[in-house]
């Protein structure tokens, strides 16, 4: 049970929010718990859900890589809820639990097969809330060797938003169903 009770699904009548809930459920991230909680702040629920789903499932960075980054961040945030959810789209693209664990805990290991670009992006997510001082000009110069500036902004905004929402759900004591 979360510290704030989610709204019953049938009490959510905003058609845009209902559509976003369906999109999240189709993706697998989030399930309906997150939107049923944020629906208590109706002015924020739609933009939060839109940002959560769009930043993860759309854009110009490989969805599988972003799924690993998302889980890395949720684990670092000690958020059981988002750490337990999985993108069905990423799974259909071939992402396995072994690859997720390697990406979270051993991405620097050359034997795990992550490209230099993937390592750099995972390091970006890893360091952002561990030691942001290490994400300096030299770090961004290294990022630019592998990613366009648009992709770096996509990654940075993705990392910031998903970590923030993981911390929020952690504070609520939220757990994923099943």
């Amino acid at each position: 049970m979360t510290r704030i009770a989610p709204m019953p699904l049938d009490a959510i009548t905003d058609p845009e929010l209902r559509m976003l809930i369906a999109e999240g459920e189709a993706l697998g991230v989030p399930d309906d718990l997150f939107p049923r909680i944020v629906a208590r702040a109706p002015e924020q629920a739609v933009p939060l859900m839109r940002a959560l789903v769009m930043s993860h499932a759309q854009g110009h960075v490989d969805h599988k890589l972003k799924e690993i980054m998302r889980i890395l961040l949720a684990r670092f945030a000690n958020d059981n809820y988002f750490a337990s959810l999985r993108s069905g789209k990423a799974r259909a693209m071939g992402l396995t639990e072994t690859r997720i664990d390697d990406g979270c805990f051993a991405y620097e290991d050359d034997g795990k097969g992550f490209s230099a670009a993937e390592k750099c992006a995972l390091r970006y997510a890893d360091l952002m809330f561990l030691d942001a001082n290490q994400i300096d000009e030299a770090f961004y110069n290294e990022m630019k060797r592998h990613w366009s500036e648009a992709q770096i902004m996509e990654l940075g905004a993705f990392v910031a938003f998903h970590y923030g929402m993981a911390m929020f759900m952690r504070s609520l004591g939220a757990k994923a169903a099943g």
Partner: protein
Amino acid sequence: MSVNPDAVDAAFFDELRKHYSDDEIVELGAFIGFNLGYHTFFGTLKFYPLFSPDGRLVSQAEAERLYGAAPTSLKPEVAE
């Protein structure tokens, strides 16, 4: 939520409920989460306000001189 998330426990929520409705707590929590993430990200990008305190449009170099190289709230002596 940022410096000691373990302190945001059931007792903390009981205290929050003395002052805020559950709907307001959700609004606050999502707002804090959003800002927690984005301000850390923005901090890595090293950008500064476009305008000086007296309203002049200034370069990023001048803005850095005016506002300081690091956000005040991240200085250790302030965090303590």
